């Protein structure tokens, strides 16, 4: 099974990268671009085939390592 974890900054948390990209797009002449945010995606190949178990295990990975839950949210997507 494949898992995809999307890690995004909690709303209200400053996103310096997003801000800089927003600005750079502006100077490159792209107009009409509002708020830009940057997040991470982590893709994992799992041996586990049981969906519920996979989800629980990836959730534990997120809490322990993949996301910094003080400032980040995460969402898990399973495939296959």
């Amino acid at each position: 099974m494949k898992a995809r974890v999307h890690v995004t900054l909690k709303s209200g948390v400053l996103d310096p990268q997003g801000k800089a990209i927003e600005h750079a797009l502006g100077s490159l002449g792209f107009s009409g671009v509002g708020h830009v945010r940057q997040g991470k995606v982590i893709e994992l190949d799992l041996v586990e085939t049981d969906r519920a178990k996979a989800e629980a295990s990836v959730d534990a990975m997120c809490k322990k390592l993949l996301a910094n839950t003080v400032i980040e949210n995460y969402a898990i997507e399973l495939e296959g």
Partner: protein
Amino acid sequence: MTRAIAQPITPELVAEHGLTADEYQRILEALGREPNITELGIYSVMWSEHCSYKSSKVHLKKLPTAAPWVIQGPGENAGVIDIGDGKAAIFKMESHNHPSFIEPYQGAATGVGGILRDVFTMGARPVANMNALRFGSPDHPKTRHLVAGVVAGIGGYGNCVGVPTVGGETDFDESYNGNILVNAMTVGVADTDRIFYSAAAGIGNPVVYVGSKTGRDGIHGATMASAEFTEDSEEKRPTVQVGDPFTEKLLIEACLELMASDAIIAIQDMGAAGLTSSSVEMASKGGVGFELDLDKVPQREENMTPYEMCLSESQERMLMVLKPGREDFARAIFEKWDLDFAVIGRITDTGNLTLTFKGEVAGDMPISSLVDDAPSYKRPYQIPAARPYLDPHDVPATNDPAEALLKLIGGPNLSSRRWIWEQYDHMVMADTVQRPGGDAAVVRVHGTNKGLAISTDCTPRYCYADPVEGGRQAVAETWRNITAVGAKPLAITDCMNFGNPERPDIMGQFAGCIEGMAEACAILDYPVVSGNVSLYNETNGKGILPTPAIGGVGLLDDINRMATISFKREGDVIFLIGESNGHLGASLYLKEVIGGNEGAPPPVDLEAERRNGDFVRSLIAEGIVDTCHDLSGGGLAVALAEMCMAGKMGAKIELKDSPLPLHALLFGEDQARYLIAAPESRSHQITATGIPATKIGRVGGERLMIGGALDITLSDLQSAHQSWLPAYMA
């Protein structure tokens, strides 16, 4: 967190803001009415321990702050000393303990950002960063994660901004398990005739906001820093601030560019309690009022309330008072650097801080009540009785001195910190002439042959055993470290990290450390020019070791006459300067090798410090000696090992007959001592009346041999010393 202006003020709300009933009563008297929620928030941050120093003020007054070279002592954003040729060194140290425990990367990063702003706000280009770190026991499950995050955060911020992080200190002790200490220091250099202060002046002059936009970051951060930790504050996860070092770099350049003109009347960074504390401090120092239109504040989020805007701790922001008519000139500079710029108010003659929001008055408070009427407490204190002297004969001997030495230099407290400093860019600006790993870092004053020597030190186990002696020792050790590179120590900054001041024993530690520090500063002509107090460093009623971290700065007249700790030439004669009494009370030998912790710390004889230090410095200045190391934790054996490792050269030491037991000679932590080395041809010059200088051996070979006691190869020393931290962090 969004609160309407009309929220009623209940006793619960008052308590939630960390204000006592008595303090709330003072607010009612100051205003002559009930505060609104914004005003309550403002009083709560201004009267917090962090901003008001209400528990510490009465003691801090005892510290000497003057010397002919002091341009600005405590009270401004940072201290300023004259370093000659029209240049000044500007520096300060600050804590970011609580935020770093909650989110180590961002907590440490924003700590660096904050202290940088304190320094460049005064007109200095930052030239060096230092970091003093204390973590819990290495076996504690959180420690590794905290070390990794804090080090990455300090590096992440400092490296990006382009200020070299040139040194620091790193301790591990279980008392910091639930409450790590992250103290960051910045040193900058300015022209003495271009130093900027925070006192606002000129009725009607514009108040200008520059830097990043304001968001809902760290609201209540300042009150958080003043409240004891409980298990659930980890759960509450207060909004942490995220640092943006890129914006900070732009802010430094933009501010320095504007500072080259005559447009600025006063400037102040927005630190803890952001807009509130910066405007109140500027107005209070200038004896004027401020009128701010909150609608003009650049905002990152929608629907921010006055409460939120006033208390936000968004980073990378500054407040300035400009000369009238210079707004457009200044705006052009900030726009060039892609930074926000907004005129948000003006100076008034009312003496009040007046806030308007959507056409209405959102707050109106006498500035004097926020600052001068802030509570000041003479908290009861009890300085713990000094522990009795521990006779070295009563301390168990080791039957294997070599193993004891390897254990010390290969253990958590004395192993190499290379794993840390290699994650810091310690060479950017190309003026680092003494890198981390020595006694003090040395940074060349750009374009000259002068150097600033910088060291941070504190031995908390001494402070716990005897606060007064520990306070003396912390100051003396920075003085010694700066002397050991050949520089003249000029002044210090401090970061006073302690537990809950409402407990008389903790307050006693504080008072005791201050007493010792004050004495050392006075005798060594080494005043305090800036500092910071961080109290309530405890978890579930258990305080940290008292930790008055000292950051010292000294001046090296000629970097070509600089000493380093590395042995340099085969055959050099090694001298021990100072008296050895084998003091093992509260020593590292006791802690790490024997597993004890009793006894008085080594006494600090400040007159001897001065004599011995002045002598060593003169030898370096005259070019007689270029190899020097002070003795500290682990004593003679550890210092010798460090000199061998740094120079990749061995040494052969003869031990003379002594009434002291061997383990006390090797590992005793007597103060005011140095090891120096010089070629035979110059060694006859190493004598002076009244200074104990003993020839103890010679540099050479591939092993460290001490009498018949100990014989270790360089590579065994190296592998013990280098491997602990990387292995722990792997």
